[in-house]
């Protein structure tokens, strides 16, 4: 089998999820005796191609064009379709980033193919690849297989594979092949403009050693002071899952997850958070995870070190009191 990995640059730097996907490709290649082509796309990407060539891959494909300097879904789809048609991979792998979500399904569809997105793992069962992804917000896993002829398209969730296990090239460097693509300005219909961040964060949650995070279980904004009192007793910062910030109950800078902050504190205390994938990717690196949720089946318990199945409104005051008491004793 021939595996093609589409690596991603984000504002002139690697998106590190690219290396996780490359590590996944190395494992799949080992299991299925496949070759790996690693692809970098953009403008002026010589140094990035050279870096990829140092990894254990069969070849590096360098796709450059003036019109690929800034990402556009039209530009990337047209260019990559040409590359796939000429290099004929069987399996095309992507990191499951916001950018990949924006164009990869269209790229696959333009070739009449489908994509299995946001995979957390795979198995090779007597030559057949089975991809594992989550459904129902992480409450279930699903085994998914491709139907029909290659090429097949799949993306891997951030954190599903370990970039630090990526193998270096055994003989120094893989060959770098530059591929020319035919792209005209009128084919690109959307125009990317300025990149920006919202008002500077007053708080840097990535540096907070202790975090108390609230989810939907908090029910109403008037209940937030109870969680804040607990955070204060603990000496930690308050944070939240996306729905709480969407509602405007806490500012966006307090949001943990794929669209917010990624944190790895000493302690992460999740109150009434179900543990949807989008949240978990932002906090699963915490050293100790405590989950308090009234639903014993909530996916957050999958990753918790300590769990209490209970109503958070009963636990929050009790825990605040217990923390105060332990400080004074």
């Amino acid at each position, binding site marked *: 089998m021939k595996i093609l990995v589409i690596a991603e640059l*984000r504002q002139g730097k690697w*998106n590190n999820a690219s290396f996780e996907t490359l590590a996944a490709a190395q494992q799949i290649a080992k299991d299925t005796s496949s070759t790996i082509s690693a692809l970098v796309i953009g403008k002026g990407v010589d140094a990035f191609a050279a870096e990829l060539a140092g990894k254990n891959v069969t070849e590096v494909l360098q796709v450059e064009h003036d019109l690929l300097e800034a990402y556009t*879904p039209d530009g990337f789809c047209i260019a990559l379709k040409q590359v796939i048609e000429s290099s004929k991979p069987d399996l095309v792998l992507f990191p499951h980033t*916001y*950018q990949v*979500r*924006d*164009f990869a*399904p*269209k790229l696959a*569809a*333009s070739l009449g193919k*489908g994509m299995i*997105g946001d995979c957390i793992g795979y198995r090779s069962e007597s030559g057949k690849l*089975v991809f594992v992804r*989550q459904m*129902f*917000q992480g*409450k*279930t*896993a*699903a*085994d*998914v*297989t491709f*139907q*029909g002829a290659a090429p097949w398209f799949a993306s891997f969730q951030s954190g599903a594979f370990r970039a630090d296990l990526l193998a270096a090239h055994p003989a120094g460097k893989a060959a770098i092949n530059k591929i020319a693509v035919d792209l005209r300005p009128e084919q690109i219909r*959307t*125009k990317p*403009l300025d*990149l*920006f*961040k*919202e008002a500077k*964060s007053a708080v840097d949650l990535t540096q907070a050693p*202790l975090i108390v995070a609230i989810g939907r279980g908090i029910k109403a904004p008037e209940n937030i002071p109870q969680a804040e009192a607990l955070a204060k007793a603990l000496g930690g910062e308050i944070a939240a899952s*996306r729905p709480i*910030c969407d*509602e405007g109950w806490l500012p966006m*800078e307090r949001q943990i997850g*794929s*669209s917010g902050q990624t944190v790895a504190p000493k*302690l992460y205390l999740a109150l009434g958070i179900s543990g949807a*994938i989008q949240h978990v990717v932002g906090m699963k690196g915490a*050293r*100790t995870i*405590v989950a308090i949720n009234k639903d014993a089946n909530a996916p957050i*318990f*999958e990753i918790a070190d*300590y*769990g*209490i199945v209970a109503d958070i409104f009963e*636990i929050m005051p*009790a*825990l605040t*009191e*217990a*923390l105060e*008491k*332990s400080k004074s004793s």
Partner: protein
Amino acid sequence: MNIIVCIKQVPAKDAPLAIAGNWIKESDIGFEMNEPDSYALEEALRLKEKHGGEVVVLSMGPERVKQTIKEALAKGADRAIHIADDNFAQLDPLGSAKALAATIGKEKADLVLTGLQSDDHGFGQTGVLLAALLDRPHATIIMAIEIAGEKMKLKRELEAGWFQHMECPLPAVLSIQSGINKVRYATLKGIMAAKKKEIATITRESLGISHQPTQKIEKIYVPTKTKKTEFLTGTPKEAASKLVEKLKFEARVI
């Protein structure tokens, strides 16, 4: 500004899920509007209030999805199209998108909106696939839409707290990020008015789409635990003091 909003009906958030093969047992559980789609609907209604035109709701699935369609009409959508299909849950993303695109192609829509992803399958591909099949420009994870003549200025969310402005010509397809707006509730007046609104039902077979599935969900299951969770029990007070003990002397994080 004529807008089509694609809305999926999904199991209610708190519904207990009983796994049956590669889907769930649908009897005995409640269904609701996919939350990300409710933001797309709200955005469509706001654009209509500002620019005039029509909001059409498009939903696929068995008879039960009419309940969600009625909710959308009660919130202010003008009419609805229901693609009836009892086996909707078995379709792959491309198969669903082909049926939606075939239906959208018969309408005169300036803008097609979808939510970011569904809370059941979570494929997150429908909007992008519709753009491919309808050959329209698209953008995803949209946090603001400003319409100026034949084009839109959009605010797109990127990762790690970054955003980007972009321009996109009309007609187009947009996937809306949750939290873009504050979703309205249906009023009693809206619920009464919805009773007179049209729901056109067509069957998916009648669209005559040729589609070979590109992927198949073999089975679904409760994931195996990667960590051993120690559950602390007792009264709230007991559980709380056990937890403080554990954090202090076992995990040593406080």
